[in-house]
């Protein structure tokens, strides 16, 4: 597999939009050709080589191409947007929209990622080892259709609107979430291993959500059905006792979603 190493060298005083950084785009190109690819900073387009040193050629296809970003790029947005195959490793933190609408392949972010990772993702794996902010795997503004496939794994915490409108695929959050995790969820799976602040699974109409920690303020439109033990969703296991709720009943469509909440951490419910 061919590896292209990008090292940030440019001036990132204004954020940069680098949706061109994908294995699909790099495949079949030499290091020099990759350096010629245009990316955006504000209304100006500039060569990738003005922002990154480029080492190594792209592979013969996207599958054969790995891109390593060797450093922190918190002000670079849209890395891996629409990628279909291959691999991107970011050895630091990255900006908004990483893996936006990705359809295949793999992105690993070793640091943190800003908001909108994996927006409307269709397939592949997006793994963020640190924390992220809002709208993980979420639908764009006004749309009720978020992530449809693939998997997003966040080892740290996420903030608001995780998995908004998700209808397929899985989101696994190792840490905590804030507001509206699983808002308008209609399919797929969200597992939060840590705590949630409030409005968990609000407006849910389908799919399954699991909260392993404590929910500070419970969503009012859910009804308890049963208690279940040791949940298993293919390769994802959630050990312990869970209260099974259905809802959300505070939505015109009437909820047919399932919300599992750790019994141990939420006895007051």
């Amino acid at each position, binding site marked *: 597999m061919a590896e292209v190493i990008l090292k940030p060298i440019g001036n990132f005083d204004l954020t940069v939009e680098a949706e061109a950084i994908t294995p699909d785009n790099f495949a079949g190109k030499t290091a020099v050709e990759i350096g010629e690819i245009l990316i955006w900073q504000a209304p100006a387009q500039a060569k990738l080589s003005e922002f990154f040193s480029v080492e190594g050629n792209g592979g013969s296809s996207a599958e054969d191409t790995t891109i390593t970003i060797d450093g922190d790029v918190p002000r670079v947005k849209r890395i891996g947007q629409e990628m279909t195959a291959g691999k991107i490793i970011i050895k630091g933190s990255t900006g908004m929209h990483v893996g936006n609408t990705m359809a295949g392949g793999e992105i690993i972010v070793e640091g943190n990622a800003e908001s909108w990772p994996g927006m409307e993702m269709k397939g592949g794996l997006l793994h963020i080892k640190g924390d992220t902010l809002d709208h993980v795997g979420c*639908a*764009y*503004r*006004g*749309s009720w259709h978020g992530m449809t496939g693939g998997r997003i794994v966040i080892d740290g915490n996420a903030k608001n609107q995780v998995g908004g409108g998700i209808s397929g695929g899985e989101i696994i959050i190792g840490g905590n979430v804030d507001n509206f995790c699983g808002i308008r969820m209609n399919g797929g799976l969200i597992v939060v291993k840590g705590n949630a602040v409030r409005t968990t699974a609000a407006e849910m109409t389908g799919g399954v959500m699991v909260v392993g920690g404590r929910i500070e303020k419970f969503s009012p439109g859910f009804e308890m059905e049963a208690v279940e033990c040791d949940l298993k969703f293919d390769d994802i296991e959630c050990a312990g006792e869970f209260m099974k709720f259905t809802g959300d009943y505070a939505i015109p469509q009437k909820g047919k979603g399932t919300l599992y909440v750790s019994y141990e951490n939420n006895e007051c419910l």
Partner: protein
Amino acid sequence: MAGTIAIKNGYVYDPLNEVDGEVMDIFIKNGKVVTELSAAEMKDAKEIDAKGKTVMPGGVDSHSHVAGAKVNTGRMMRPEDHYKYYQKKTPIAHSGCGYTVPSVYLGGYEYSKMGYTTVFEAAVPPMEARHTHEEMRSIPMLDMAGYLVLGNNWFLMRYLKEGDIDKAAAYVSWMMKTHKTYGIKCVNPAGVENWGWGENVSALDEANIHFEVTPEDIIKGLAEINEQLGIPMPMHLHANNLGHPGCWEITRDSLKIPKSIKAKPNTDVEWAETKMKAQRHQSVYLTHCQFNAFGGTSWRDFESGVKGITDYVNSNDHVVMDSGCVPFGDATVMTGDGPAIHDLYQLTGNKWSNTDVECECGSGVLPFTYLKSNPIHSVQWAMGLETLLYVKDAWKSIMTTDSPNGGPFTKYPQIIAWLMSNKARQDTFEECHKWASDRSGLASETREMSLSEIAIVTRANAARTTGLAHSKGTLAVGADGDVAVYDIDAKKIDVNDYESIIRGFQNASYTIKGGEVITQDGEILAIPEKNTFYSDIAIKADSEKEMLKDVKSWFKYYTIGFNNYPTPDKYLANPTPIKVNAER
């Protein structure tokens, strides 16, 4: 010389002038069609070689939702409609976005690229007329006008209840001037006022709450007023019960109401030298027939009811209608018929916006996607085409999608292909739900429209119906120099290769406005001046004075003052009054 051009050797389709595909040259001088250009003029003129191409008058859309409060509600509430569909700015053109509800600049450009040069905004709520005009002013490339929504107006309902048709007419003439609008739009008469209480009406003889007038009273009253005043176009009717299974019957019965009213357009304009009579003779213009032609009694036995309406249209001459075709895909449903959109909300649970306008009317907006896999939608697709193919005389019909209700106007080329090619229709039957063939008659309809008929339903008849054929929808001498040149070889056309029809109509080789090339092969070359038409109706000063006394005394129910109610000229791009002589 500005606005001077020669379009040579094209196959010309100018139905109002009885030109049917003959190879001709079209000359335009100072923006108007002329018989010829002198040698000296030719030297300065731009010359276009249209050999092997189809030449038509600029397209005229007589019913489209492109400007105003509810269209903008659609834009505002649908970022998901815009983010993937956009256009970048160029040195002369603005940027824009939006697929079913494009922003104003983009909308103008897209119409122009298809060879359209005149568009009517289908619904202007009086109190929101300033807004509608503000948007129309910003829409580039197109001459425009708007229809004033009057079918549930308190003042009118009160006059009609009292039987005072003269005052009602005076009110309409004042309102047209006050809000610089062009024709009368009647939406779900009597029903929208009931929607102010969350109700509707469902029969022509059902009086509404409080005002106690029936749909029949309003349709009859407005049609009479329309002809008493001599408004350029017939009353524009969106019939009751729209979108309900079985509504075709009330639609047909509504069309019967103005049968005895004689069309009397009475405008003071110079007429282009067309061979055909370019004045309308109908007293009612039914809009988006498809949505008003539902058969069956429920969604289970839903079927096309189009034939019931087209049979009536075929045997009567006082009706003209547009189709409201459904080309499948994304749409945004928007109408002045608030309760109809509430019904759609109940069916779909989608996002839904509604704006009731005090003392006047209302509106609703809802995103909608027509799917080939959906049985109802598939029948609606077939019905839209039936409304055009079943009407024997193309001069009784106009092609629309009720944009963006059935789908965006950018789908017109696709609809033209279905009208011209039975193969295109049969191929679509293969892809869509079988209800399309089981519940409509379209599958066995073999008619294929000619280019001349397409020219009638996409420009000539839209212009004639709206009373604008003195200058639009024809290339007769004296007409406006608005021309579309399509890369379609009329003599070699193979309708089975319908993709080439779609391509041909999608991006006109040239769109010419006032004798100036404004788009070429989909690229914007110039932003022309544009006109906004409205009916300037002269009535007796005394009648107006009497009427205004009432209006002022009832104005306390508004939240805007009488003095701040009108739409000033500044909101119009080149305000162009069409003089109407009601007094004569």
